[in-house]
């Protein structure tokens, strides 16, 4: 798993990756911790939690069903008896999930060589720089932010020697992830593929248990589905965003075509960072001559990395298929082959779950495997250069440096995005209070929550975007 070894210990190189990643992780956690909850989404959500428990028992109430997410809010609020405490604790979950995910990734990779360590820093940059990660940093909608580390923990368990407690642990983690958001279902095919490919921690019992649990969940969902409209949210199409009404008018008789479009563009977003929410905004900017440097960087860095992952994946699959297996009882598939297949499955499953409408955040679960695959792909490419001719080392070395730099810029862009979000959330509190008071004048619980949250929304200790020259902002990106 860790490539060619040398005298340095795995602990040393893992510590080195943690040290290099520490500024990013600490900064991101610090920014998220000081980000106010926005008025939009939060106040209405908490009003709902305060006044009704039907979101727990009635899957037909909305097109989505996230009982554990709502239960978390309810437990924190009623358990502490204080909205302020609930807000702090809920934010702690988000911060822990984000920091924990990055730490888990590094710990799982545990590089043993300098090249593996460098590849691990690259994987961290890829994880944080993906649209799926970035779009899931939004408070209070942390459904997938919780699901992503759960997915990684499941993967760590299926790749370890089987223990009796793996099955209940994997089942619990899967139910938790699904209970937070439907995207948790991505775990199911990933575990099944891991079992089929002989992952040591994925037993037949594990697979059977997870299939049964999923069947029960789907039976409940399908049996309680309400008379929902064909399109629940705005949908991107080509270069424009269609409202649900517009989409219904246009695709009502045959929504499957639009659903297929959503699936394909979600996949394209994960693999190429374009389109966003179904809209080919970078292509549009390119055509109108208004394309920014960061847009080009996102598309090219994603395309090159995806190509590299495909090259590595095909290579490891071929190697496994061509290897004579001396023990017919053991699996012919290597860890790397399983990661590649799991990546393909996670991308496809994430895309399929976004059939109704697509957003960057729907690629969150797949982003975990995209980062894992990036680690192995870049490590493989770098290791091939060790004994390569000098000319190849220079040319390919330049390509790898440029690719790593491009993803570092995206990582910095994510941090700036988080700072800007915090700044915008505070501005919303400063400017939109009166409008909300007027609009929701007849909803006393809403106003009660709104007034109780003013202090957290207007606190002066809120991050703001870094002041930087226009050229730098153009390269790093801004919203």
């Amino acid at each position, binding site marked *: 798993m860790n490539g060619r070894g040398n005298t340095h210990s795995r602990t040393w190189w893992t510590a080195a990756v943690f040290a*290099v990643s520490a500024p990013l992780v600490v900064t991101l956690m610090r920014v998220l911790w000081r980000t106010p909850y926005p008025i939009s989404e939060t106040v209405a959500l908490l009003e709902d939690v305060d006044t009704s428990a039907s979101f727990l028992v009635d899957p037909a109430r909305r097109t989505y069903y996230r009982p554990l997410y709502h239960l978390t809010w309810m437990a924190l609020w009623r358990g502490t008896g204080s909205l302020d405490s609930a807000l702090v604790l809920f934010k702690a979950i988000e911060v822990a999930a984000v920091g924990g995910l990055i730490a888990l990734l590094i710990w799982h990779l545990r590089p043993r060589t300098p090249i593996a360590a460098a590849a691990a820093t690259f994987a961290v*940059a890829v994880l944080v720089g993906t649209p799926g990660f970035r779009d899931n940093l939004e408070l209070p909608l942390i459904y997938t932010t919780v699901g992503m580390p759960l997915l990684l923990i499941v993967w760590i368990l299926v790749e370890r020697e089987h223990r009796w407690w793996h099955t209940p642990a994997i089942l619990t983690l899967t139910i938790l992830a699904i209970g937070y958001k439907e995207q948790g279902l991505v775990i199911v095919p990933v575990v099944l593929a891991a079992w089929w490919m002989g992952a040591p921690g994925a037993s037949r019992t594990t697979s059977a248990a997870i299939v049964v649990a999923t069947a029960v969940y789907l039976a409940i969902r399908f049996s309680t589905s309400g008379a929902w409209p064909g399109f629940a949210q705005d949908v991107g199409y080509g270069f424009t965003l269609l409202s649900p009404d517009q989409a219904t008018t246009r695709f009502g008789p045959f929504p499957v075509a639009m659903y297929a479009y959503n699936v394909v563009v979600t996949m394209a977003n994960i693999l190429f960072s374009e389109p966003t929410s179904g809209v080919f905004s970078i292509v549009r900017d390119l055509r109108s001559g208004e394309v920014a440097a960061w847009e080009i960087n996102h598309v090219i860095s994603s395309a090159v990395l995806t190509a590299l992952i495909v090259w590595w994946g095909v290579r490891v699959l071929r190697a496994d298929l061509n290897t004579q297996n001396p023990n017919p009882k053991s699996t012919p598939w290597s860890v790397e082959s399983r990661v590649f297949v799991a990546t393909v499955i996670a991308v496809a499953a994430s895309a399929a779950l976004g059939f109704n409408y697509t957003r960057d955040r729907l690629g969150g679960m797949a982003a975990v495997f995209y980062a894992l695959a990036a680690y192995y792909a*870049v490590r493989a490419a770098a290791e091939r250069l060790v004994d390569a001719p000098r000319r190849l080392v220079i040319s390919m070395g330049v390509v790898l440096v440029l690719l790593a730099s491009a993803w570092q810029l995206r990582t910095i862009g994510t941090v700036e995005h988080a700072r800007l979000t915090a700044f915008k959330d505070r501005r919303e509190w400063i400017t939109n209070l009166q*409008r909300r008071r007027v609009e929701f004048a007849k909803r006393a619980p809403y106003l009660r929550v709104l007034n109780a949250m003013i202090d957290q929304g207007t606190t002066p200790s809120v991050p703001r975007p870094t002041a930087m020259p226009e050229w730098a902002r153009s390269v790093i990106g801004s919203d």
Partner: protein
Amino acid sequence: MERIAWMLGAPAIIGALWIAATEVRDPTATSSSLPAFESIADAIRHGEVEDAYAFVSTGADPNAPIPFSDAELTSGRQVTISPLMLAVSSNKENTVMMLLSFGAQMDLPQNELAVCLARRLGYDDLAVMIVRDGKPAREVTCPEPPPDAPAPLLAFVK
């Protein structure tokens, strides 16, 4: 092998240094509660909504008239004007919304002509917003500005 590792890892090290540097940079890294302008009038006229809010959040009365003069808006004359009227005359929609959110009352004499001023200056969207969110208790009759008024704001202030 180590040279290749350095090539691949160097961007991460530089990125880490950049992120750390931007996080520990000067105090403007956070939205300070200390006003960045000398007066709330300056903040409304020349700053962002956060600059004006810094005064309100530290105790400035959003209804208290303030001295103000401006070459364009008052032809250089010193006038006394409410923060809301000043924000309207500067077409600062966010600041108007902030003032309404944090205590500006449309029924006070110093504020009641805000809608008239917005319409007079051609800021129709702002006027609609003030009526919708400010909820004035009664409709006011807008004064007819003198034809030779050197600046539109002068017709609405003392």
